[in-house]
Every structure is written in structure tokens, then in C-alpha cells.
């Protein structure tokens, strides 16, 4: 915050910056650094002792922790894959349809499809829990309408389906975000480009694949990284629908719920802030890794397509 040379010190710059910097540093950056630091310590005889990477060795090696950790990580990767494979293609499809010229009711569709995104996880988790519940019978009734009643099982209660079901619920909630961002990107394609394509006889589907899709790739990149960060930081939906134990039998456990249990303890296990910090550090490294891949590999390559 130093002033340029040969000029009086510009106090106002400091005044403008200070509140934001202060709050941001004190509540966000320092605790983040503190958490990373805490992961290197362990509470022995009521005092914090520096143990180096010992907590991480426990996390990866001690079966009490490592089984849960790898399970949570695997589940989290699957959670992310479902989002990438289902949420983003649906978002692109809806945006492409919405942006077609002279489409009637576009504003209505846009508003309606975005509704789930504004609802809280608590509402979404519980509403779907009720709908999929075999007690109530909304889902079996609906399947019956299209003659597929035999397919119904209590999806959230079965180990093999629960995680996929929850991922799809999360996709249902957040599909509005890729839709809106892609929609914005499609609208910002200059008319000349489209007209030139039409002069060359490229219309309809091939116009989308050959002209528009390459131009919206940067937006798809942003959506992918947003999805990545959001997924590896997720907690609320699983906690609401399945509880902190992420049942059945930990099959829906992801890093967020694992962190919560490690930090606060559950049932017989006592909470351990240091192990919690170690898990948070792993999440930090994973997210940082993803962001770096995006910034240095994906974005620099996508730049070329920008206007």
C-alpha cells in the first residue's frame, strides 16, 4: 500500500482497502493458514505438539482412518463424474435450446428451470427424501404411470444406488447454473459470426457443433472448475438427506461429511481437531490442484478461441 514516489502518501487508498482486507485476512486467510498448520500438530497430554506429517500418515495408513478416507475420496470422485457427465451436458442442451431465436416462453422456461438452484439443500434434500420414500409412494406411482413400477426400489436406502441418486438430486438442483452461464455465452457470440456461418451453408445442428460449441468452450471450462470446487466442498445435501454418518454403511460419505465427523466426533468417537485439519488440508490440496490444472492447462489453451 505504498504511495507512488514523489507524491504525498495517499491515505484514502488505505482507508478504502483496509476494511475488506482486514475482514478477509482475519476470517478467511489466517484461519485457512491456521488449519494447514494445525494439521501438523497433535494433542498429546493437553498440549499441542509438532508431529510433522504424522497425521497424514495416520490418515493414509491407519485402517481406522484410511478406509474411510479413501472411501470418501472415491465417492467424491464419483459424485464429480456424475455432475460432469449429466449436469453439464443437460445445461448445454437447455441453453442451446433457450438461445434459439424467436423461441416463445423463453423467459418462463429460464425462470422455472432455475428455481431449484435458489432453494436450500435442506429443502431439496428433504423434499426428495419424501418423494423417493417407499412409504409415501410418489415415485412408485409416477413410475406406474409409464409402466415401470417394477424398477422402483428405495434408492436412497440401498448401498449401491444411494450415492448416484444423491448426485442426481444435486444435478437436479444445480443444472440452472451451467444453463445460465452457457446461455450468456451463446448470447454474446457476435451476429457476424453466425451470419458468416449461414452464408457458408452451416445451419442447425452442425452450426452448433462447428461454430458455437468451440466459442463457448471457455465457459464450459469455467463451469467445470466451479463444479469441481463445489463438489469437493459439498456437505449439506448428504448431511440433510443421510445424516452425518452418510449411510447406508458410509456409501454416500464424501470428504465434507468425513471432515465433519472427524472434527466433531460422532457416536463413540471423540472429535479430533487435528485430524479434521488434516482432512481439510487434503481437501485444500485437491481443490488447489484442480484450480491450478484449470488455470495453467485448460485456460491458456482455451484463450485462443476468444475474440
Amino acid at each position, binding site marked *: *500500500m505504498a504511495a507512488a514516489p514523489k507524491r504525498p502518501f495517499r491515505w484514502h*487508498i488505505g482507508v478504502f482497502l483496509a476494511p475488506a482486507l482486514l475482514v478477509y485476512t482475519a476470517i478467511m486467510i489466517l484461519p*485457512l493458514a491456521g*488449519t494447514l498448520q*494445525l494439521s501438523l500438530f497433535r494433542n498429546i497430554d493437553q498440549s499441542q505438539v509438532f508431529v510433522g506429517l504424522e497425521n497424514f500418515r495416520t490418515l493414509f495408513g491407519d485402517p481406522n482412518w484410511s478406509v474411510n478416507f479413501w472411501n470418501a475420496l472415491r465417492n467424491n470422485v464419483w459424485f464429480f463424474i456424475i455432475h460432469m457427465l449429466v449436469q453439464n451436458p443437460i445445461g448445454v442442451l437447455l441453453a442451446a*435450446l433457450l438461445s434459439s431465436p424467436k423461441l416463445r416462453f423463453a423467459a418462463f422456461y429460464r425462470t422455472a428451470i432455475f428455481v431449484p438452484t435458489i432453494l436450500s439443500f435442506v429443502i431439496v434434500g428433504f423434499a426428495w427424501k419424501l418423494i423417493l420414500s417407499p412409504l409415501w409412494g*410418489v415415485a412408485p406411482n409416477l413410475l406406474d404411470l409409464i409402466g415401470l413400477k417394477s424398477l422402483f426400489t428405495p434408492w436412497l436406502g440401498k448401498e449401491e444406488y444411494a450415492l448416484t441418486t444423491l448426485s442426481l438430486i444435486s444435478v437436479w438442483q444445480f443444472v440452472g447454473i451451467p444453463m445460465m452461464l452457457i446461455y450468456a455465452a451463446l448470447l454474446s457470440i457476435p451476429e457476424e459470426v453466425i451470419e458468416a456461418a449461414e452464408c457458408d451453408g452451416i445451419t442447425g445442428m452442425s452450426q452448433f457443433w462447428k461454430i458455437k460449441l468451440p466459442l463457448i468452450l471457455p465457459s464450459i471450462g469455467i463451469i467445470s472448475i466451479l463444479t469441481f470446487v463445489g463438489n469437493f466442498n459439498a456437505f449439506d445435501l448428504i448431511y440433510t438427506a443421510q445424516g452425518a454418518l452418510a449411510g447406508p454403511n458410509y456409501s454416500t460419505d464424501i470428504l465434507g461429511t468425513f471432515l465433519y465427523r472427524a472434527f466433531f466426533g460422532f457416536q463413540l468417537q471423540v472429535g479430533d481437531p487435528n485430524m479434521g485439519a488434516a482432512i481439510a488440508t487434503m481437501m*485444500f490440496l485437491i*481443490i488447489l490442484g484442480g484450480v491450478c490444472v484449470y488455470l495453467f492447462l485448460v485456460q491458456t489453451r482455451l484463450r485462443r478461441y476468444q475474440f
Partner: protein
Amino acid sequence: MSTATRSLPRSIGAHAILLTYTVIALFPVIIVIMNSFKSRAGIFGAPLTPPTPKTFDLIGYTTVIGQGDFIHYFQNSLVVTVASLFFVLLFGAMAAFALSEYRFRGNTMMGLYLALGIMIPIRLGTVAILQLMVASGLVNTLTALILVYTAQGLPLAVFILSEFMKQVSDDLKNAGRIDGLSEYTIFFRLVLPLVRPSMATVAVFTMIPIWNDLWFPLILAPSEETKTVTLGAQLFLGQFVTNWNAILAALSLAIMPVLILYVIFSRQLIRGITSGAVK
């Protein structure tokens, strides 16, 4: 836009897909709200039909209003959201102004430092945040939540607002300087009113995650006094697992304020997203 020749079948196809998805998006919400107005027999007998005079019943709502302290939770949520929003907008705009208006050593570094928080979620610092709040005696106060949400909202606010502030004409600000206005007056009187539309966009983006957050209320302020409506709903729903009327009514009560606000502000929100605020 271009005037592509669109055949009728294609347009019907587009509407069919969009309409199908609209139904998928809205149907859980509609089912929940519809059934919240029914008696228990109605809920289980015919879950897919709207309430008829025979099945209409407000028992769920009377249970919820009688049992839960929802009005109080609602107030807490309102206080936390409005206060955080105020600080995010004020501090964010001030920092954005400093970064976009003045050239000083470390400007770019400062921008990058603040942008860090857009990608790294504040949740990862929870362990140390809780320790900090315990040490400063702020656990189970709304202040703790307001501080956390202010820090959480600032990075994106600074980023978006400085983009917009770069567009405010220099001539206008320099004219103000020649007239002898202080830098503070220029900011509050000239620049802030001009970026008001983008402030609204930032407000909407900041508000939704704060209102809906479950993690920090659960960890920093779970006491009865400081529960937010999201946490309150979560606990309430957990308690009444078998009382379907009450659950459906509680869900509907939680959905409706957000839904009404959304319908009122949806134009603003969608314009904000599509104006390229998030590049």
C-alpha cells in the same frame, strides 16, 4: 439474432424438451406445496392430486406454527443475511474502487490476493475459525456468522465490482476533483450511484448462499437463540420424521419466502448472470 429458417418440427421438439425439463424442475416443489394443504389420508391416498375440499386440511401448518420457533429463526436469518450483505457491499465496493481507480505499488498483487478466495472455499478453514470464535467469545452469536459471511462474500464482490467500476468515466471523476471534492465524496456521491445495478447483481449472488447455508450455523451458532431458519428447518424436520403433515408444511414455509423473492427479483438475477458479470 440471425434469422435461421426453423422448421415447425424442430421448434416443437425444442418446446417438448424444455417443457419436460421444466416439469422435472418444478414437480418436487409443487408436490410438496400441494400436499402440505392436505389431511394425512389425502397425503397418502392420492399424493399426485391437488387438494380437494374433502382432503383439504391445515393441520400441518398449525402444528409447525405451534411447535417450532420459526419466526425467531426467520429473524435471525434476516439479521445475518442483511448485515452480511451490507458489509460485503460496502467493504467490497470500497476495495474495488481502490483497486480500479488508483495505481499504486502492489495493486495487482492485492487483486490476486483477494481473488484467491473466489476459488478456495472458506469452509476449509473451519477448524481454525471455530478456535478463533471460541477464543474471542463469539461462539453462538450472530456476529460470528456475519463476520464469516462477510469474508466469504468479499472476494467475488470485489472482483465483479472492480470490473464495473473500470467502466465509470474518468472525466466525471476528474471533473469532481477539479471542483474540489474529496476522494471519499467522489466514491460515495459519484461512483456508487453509477454502479448501483451491478451492486444489485452482487447482492443477489451473495444473498442466496448465505440464506441457504447450513454448515456455519451448525458449527458456529447452533444455540436456540441464534439458530437460522435453515438450521431450524433441518432440526425440526429431523424431529418430526413421522409427522408428514408437519414436515410438508415446514418445507412449504421454508420454500415460499425464497420463491416469492425469486419471482420478484428473477429478472434482476438473470440479467445479472447474462450481462457477463461472471466472465
